[in-house]
């Protein structure tokens, strides 16, 4: 057993877990933050994407112990209260989801993408950056539109 201490969505969380516990298991089973999903469990689909120390990672392919001491952001930590985060609002506006299973991972990936590109994104780049996030409903068109809209809003805020 290992004592794992993480700052999750700004709140310090400590739990005793088996060493082989995956980060996604820690978040879902120990902290009951079930917004982070497990789709494939083989690092391909991206439903489990969270941020660890500011970087988007696949939480099905990282041990909670590897993240010990880190700061983690999950989909639950995005909005402040009842108001949707701009990316969540953009996905809603553009119908960027159908069943919604992939959406938390899509949004966490998109947030990382917008930050790394400083909001300067085009459709080709967004599609390349979504390489590791699979949606089996939408065909991606509206997901790309939502991310571009949110990126433009981010740029507008910087001016």
């Amino acid at each position, binding site marked *: 057993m290992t004592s794992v201490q993480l700052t999750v969505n700004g709140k310090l969380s400590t739990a005793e877990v088996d060493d082989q516990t995956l980060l996604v298991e820690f978040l879902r089973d120990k902290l009951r933050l079930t917004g982070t999903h497990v789709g494939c469990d083989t690092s391909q689909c991206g439903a489990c994407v969270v941020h660890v120390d500011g970087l988007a990672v696949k939480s099905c392919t990282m041990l909670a112990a590897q993240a*010990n001491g880190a700061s983690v952001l999950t989909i639950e930590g995005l909005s402040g209260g009842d108001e949707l985060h701009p990316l969540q609002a953009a996905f809603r506006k553009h119908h960027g989801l159908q069943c919604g299973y992939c959406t938390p991972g899509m949004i966490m990936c998109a947030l990382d993408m917008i930050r790394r590109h400083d909001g300067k994104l085009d459709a080709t780049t967004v599609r390349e950056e979504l390489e590791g996030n699979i949606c089996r409903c939408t065909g991606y068109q509206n997901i790309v539109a939502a991310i571009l809209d949110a990126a433009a809003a981010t740029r507008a805020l910087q001016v």
Partner: protein
Amino acid sequence: MHPTTYHRPLTLKAAAAIHAAGDSAYIAGGHTILPAIKQRLAAPENLIDLRHIPELTGIHAEGGLLSIGAAMSHAHVAASAVVRSAIPALAGLAGSIGDPMVRHLGTIGGSVANNDPAADYPSALLALGATVFTDRRSLKADDFFTGLYASALDAGEIVTRITFSVPVSAGYAKFRNPASRYAMAAAFVARFADGSVRAAVTGAGNRGVFRATAMEAALRQSFSTDALRGLAFEAGDMMSDIHGSAEYRAHLAKVMVQRAVQFTGEARIFK
């Protein structure tokens, strides 16, 4: 997942000592070992995290050599101003591995030590005349890769850093498998100040990454795609599976060498 004990040593000596004491595997980005454990292909009693050892970090260029710490992630290498300026094709190669999340965790040392026959980095090491430094010695890339998932590393030996000879120019061309996105065939071709050319192919060979020595000689005479006319890879040396026959891969590998020459100075991904 199979039970294991996690260790986070802060020195190479401590990491090696844990490894020597019992059934162990090293973990850095974890994007090979964790899937392997999930699939019951590996069941180490101890997992030794190498990412917190200072000697394994850092990227710098000096005296015609580019040195990259083994624990540097693909995202670090892809975004490094030092790498982009010294060997842009190497930065492009790193930026073409997996997806953004994979690149945030996967490391150059892990990729090199694992020597997956479809991994990108091994071709760059061979073509750039790299040296692999470990906690015990240094090894030339030509002696390092010994077969599929096999290297000259001894049990418990830790890759610490890799140094690349900075070429006049280099190109990387990869044709992706449309499903897995791994290389079906990819070529790294580098031209050096003394006129020599080194070219290596990954993803295609049935013994893993290999150097295209006949093509290197032709490119030394004339660095152009025309120089490759009449040269071919042997289908008998290629992998053959449901994704492509050996004949297809032999053809594709040559096309990738041609494209790496044509687009020297960058990494080009084809699909």
